[in-house]
């Protein structure tokens, strides 16, 4: 296997990290929706935490995406 194709495969593998971010973000917002549906008065209290959770979950996936970009365009 030559280096160019190995880089492509590696970048593709690194993008698998985004699966976890997708599941995580979906989980955060589904929990937010069910929480607010049960108790609409709690929305101001739970919404900041939901966005905090969204940002934290999204970041973990972006670690993988950043690695994929680094493999493709730096090395």
């Amino acid at each position: 296997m030559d280096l160019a194709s190995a880089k492509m495969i590696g970048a593709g593998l690194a993008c698998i990290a985004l699966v976890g971010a997708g599941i995580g973000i979906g989980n955060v917002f589904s929990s937010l929706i069910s929480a607010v549906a049960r108790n609409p008065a709690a929305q101001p209290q739970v919404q900041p935490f939901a966005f905090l959770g969204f940002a934290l979950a999204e970041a973990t996936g972006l670690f993988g995406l950043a690695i994929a970009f680094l493999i493709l365009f730096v090395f």
Partner: protein
Amino acid sequence: MALELHPLEQFKIEPLIPLHIGGLDVSYTNAALFMTIIVVLVTALLVLGTKRGALVPGRWQSIGEMSYEFVADMVDTNSGHGAEPYFPFIFTLFMFVLFANALGLIPYSYTVTSQIIVTFALAIFIFMGVTIVGFAKHGLHFLRFFVPEGVPLLLLVVLVPIEILSYCIRPFTLSVRLFANMLAGHTMLAIFGGFAASVGLLAIFPVAIDVAIYALEVLVAALQAYVFAILAALYLRDALHMH
């Protein structure tokens, strides 16, 4: 690659005023220029905006007061009492990161927070400051922070190293989170921009995707500044109140 893409070129640091002091390269770079712009902008917004001190605030004064109240509220709820002396630090952090992220969204500008060294410098100073605060407030008793309560002695052998590791890894996760967000977002914008340049009339699709990503990036820019500041506030709570 079939396409000639150079999406990482936007992160290149170029010296504007070359300066070497004793073998050290301390040139004034484009990153330094944008950090200067950020500091000037934040200072101008807060100083000039609130100069009149009107009872009914105007537009600029409103922005200044709202950002102040937003962070003050955040520090109040997340750091517990006794955190008021550290509010200026958290507020400065929030405004700096927010302006760095927001300025980076302007085309052809430079995103300071896409440099790992910038975010890592911020994070390591938060980490050192918080640790010093913890030891200054609790003395050696602060080490109890690493020992969970009500755990059998045998489990402690495993848990204490994990606690210490998860504490020491904080500056890395804090800095890499902000850096990776900015790097990935701006790289994606550049990649789809590169597609648009090479497919002729079909360019409307990559451009549409770019618009959507840009909207997400605006959200991410504000959100990551918020997350950076709130995590600093949470770490401070750990040092002040231990659990």
